[in-house]
């Protein structure tokens, strides 16, 4: 029995628009939009791939399978694999608390969630140096224990988490607030426990918003440059992520290699977009039924 994919009866009637612009205006607006997209999005993207392949496939493959590049790719994936789940849990907790409960300090929490968006990435990196660096607040206590945070992988992970934590929470808070508490109250009145309510009612209602949040968060976690640059220390093969590796290659005039790694990073971003589009297409009917995006 296919229960979940019944198309929703929400087809809107085709109707004539009251606001009919002249042919010229429409043509002009469409052209401006397309040209803008071409000039600012598609052209640079093509340039990346063209530059990457300019010296031929051999150089391209060599640049990517070079040990330092492989290390950078591994580190980037590792950081994203830690930062995204952490922010997923944090984003869910924060938005659940903010949208469903009233508590003192709620507005402060909402403001704090936006903090990473409003401060420069350099500062987002610097705070960790100030906290955990050798002359920082906590650094002197950790050093004797052999725990190294700044200029090491933990620092990069912390900086990435800091920079990317608003993405999921920001996506979920308005969604959960709009949905209100009634469905949860109904579940609880029917005898569901808190965990059952969350798993069976809250989560399915926000799963699309959550997915978008995760995709955005992931894209940013892989691509973050500023904050990571401050805490990384740029140790080749150890603390270089893909964006840092690309910059180093570029500064050393190895532009073909730089663009090769850049194209891979761009590709990871494109894959994210493709997954999102595929999911939208696959579950379009269900999406329409649950009225969101």
């Amino acid at each position, binding site marked *: 029995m296919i229960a979940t994919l019944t198309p929703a009866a929400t087809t809107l009637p085709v109707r004539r628009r009251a606001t009919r612009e002249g042919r010229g205006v429409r043509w002009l607006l469409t052209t401006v939009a397309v040209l803008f997209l071409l000039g600012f999005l598609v052209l640079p993207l093509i340039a990346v791939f063209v530059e990457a392949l300019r010296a031929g496939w051999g150089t391209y493959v060599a640049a990517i399978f070079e040990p330092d590049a492989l290390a950078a790719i591994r580190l980037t994936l590792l950081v994203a694999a830690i930062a995204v789940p952490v922010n997923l849990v944090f984003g869910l907790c924060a938005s659940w608390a903010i949208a469903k409960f009233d508590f003192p300090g709620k507005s402060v929490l909402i403001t704090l969630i936006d903090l990473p968006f409003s401060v420069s990435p350099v500062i987002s990196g610097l705070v960790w140096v100030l906290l955990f660096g050798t002359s920082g607040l906590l650094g002197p206590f950790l050093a004797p224990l052999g725990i190294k945070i700044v200029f090491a992988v933990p620092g990069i992970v912390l900086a990435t988490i800091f920079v990317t934590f608003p993405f999921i929470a920001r996506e979920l808070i308005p969604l959960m607030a709009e949905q209100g508490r009634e469905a949860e109250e109904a579940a609880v*009145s029917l005898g569901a426990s808190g965990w059952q309510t969350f798993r069976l009612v809250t989560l399915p209602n926000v799963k699309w918003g959550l997915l978008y949040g995760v995709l955005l968060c992931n894209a940013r976690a892989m691509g973050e440059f500023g904050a990571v640059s401050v805490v990384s220390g740029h140790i080749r093969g150890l603390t270089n992520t893909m964006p840092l590796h690309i910059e180093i290659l570029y500064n050393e005039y190895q532009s073909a290699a730089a663009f090769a790694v850049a194209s891979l990073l761009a590709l990871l971003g494109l894959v994210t977009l493709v997954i999102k589009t595929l999911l939208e297409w696959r579950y379009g009917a269900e999406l329409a039924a649950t009225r969101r995006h």
Partner: protein
Amino acid sequence: MTITVKGVAKEFGGFRAVDDLDLIIHEGELVALLGPSGSGKTTLLRIIAGLEFPDRGQVLFNGDDATARAVGERAVGFVFQHYALFRHMTVFENVAFGLRVKPRAQRPSRPEITRRVHELLRLVQLEGMAQRYPTQLSGGQRQRVALARALAIEPRVLLLDEPFGALDAQVRKDLRRWLRRLHQEMGLTSVFVTHDQEEALELADRVVVMNKGRIEQIGAPAEIYDRPANPFVYEFLGQVNRVPYRGEGNTARVLGRSFALEGTAGDGIAYVRPEEIEISREPRPDSVPALVRHVTALGPVIRIDLDLEGSDPVEVSLPPARWRDLCVTKGDAVHLRPANVRIFPAA
């Protein structure tokens, strides 16, 4: 299940939603909480359900203190104003929810759940709709899914928050009758919140009229309508003419007729229902002259607006047959005589 509410009070940020309120709802009763918005009726219902906890006071179920019990432990069926259906679940899954979330030891088997859900869907006349999503249903159908879902856990108490508020007139009427029958057949104790006096009078065994977090009057529909306890209830239920009077010794003159003042002498306000004013062509003892301003035919009743000299306009309603006998139209001079008034001396 007898529900006792004892001295319950609840504040929201300084606003007293429910103010030291006592109420007993007897086993098998169908009770309406009636009042204007902000009167605390929904808060009281949510306190009984366990969705809201009182600042003071107790809620007893069959004499046991249930105040600290969570909503899930009270075994009450709650129907929300906007239904609160799970929109990512089919009608079947919505109704089955309360059975599926039971602890393993108490959970019915899969075939048993299927059987019970279909039985409930038959009860609410939605048998063919099991695989639909809530967005594919009409308002009345959603309301019945919400009811079936609440009934699935076999509650002894059914609580409904403005159950017919969002429905159109005809659907509302059908659902009212149907709910009444359901309540009787299942032997439930039911409480519903409404701001619609007609709904409360038609459906309930007893009506609790609320205002500003307090109970103004409790009684059977006929009692509430015929003998309102105070001006608020008078004005909230049905149409009424407010006629200020001047006390003259121990009597008050209302629309030409004298009524004895019991207790307090002095000025005040008299309340006269439109159907309790007699209208005639010829003057009679104790009648006052009036001028017909407007006649409105509302089907089963004819409403006549009249102007009086030295007094506010008055509304009278008549059965159509009586109106045809009288044959009054706009601009006619007639005479009025109140058959029955309620006098509330000025405080």
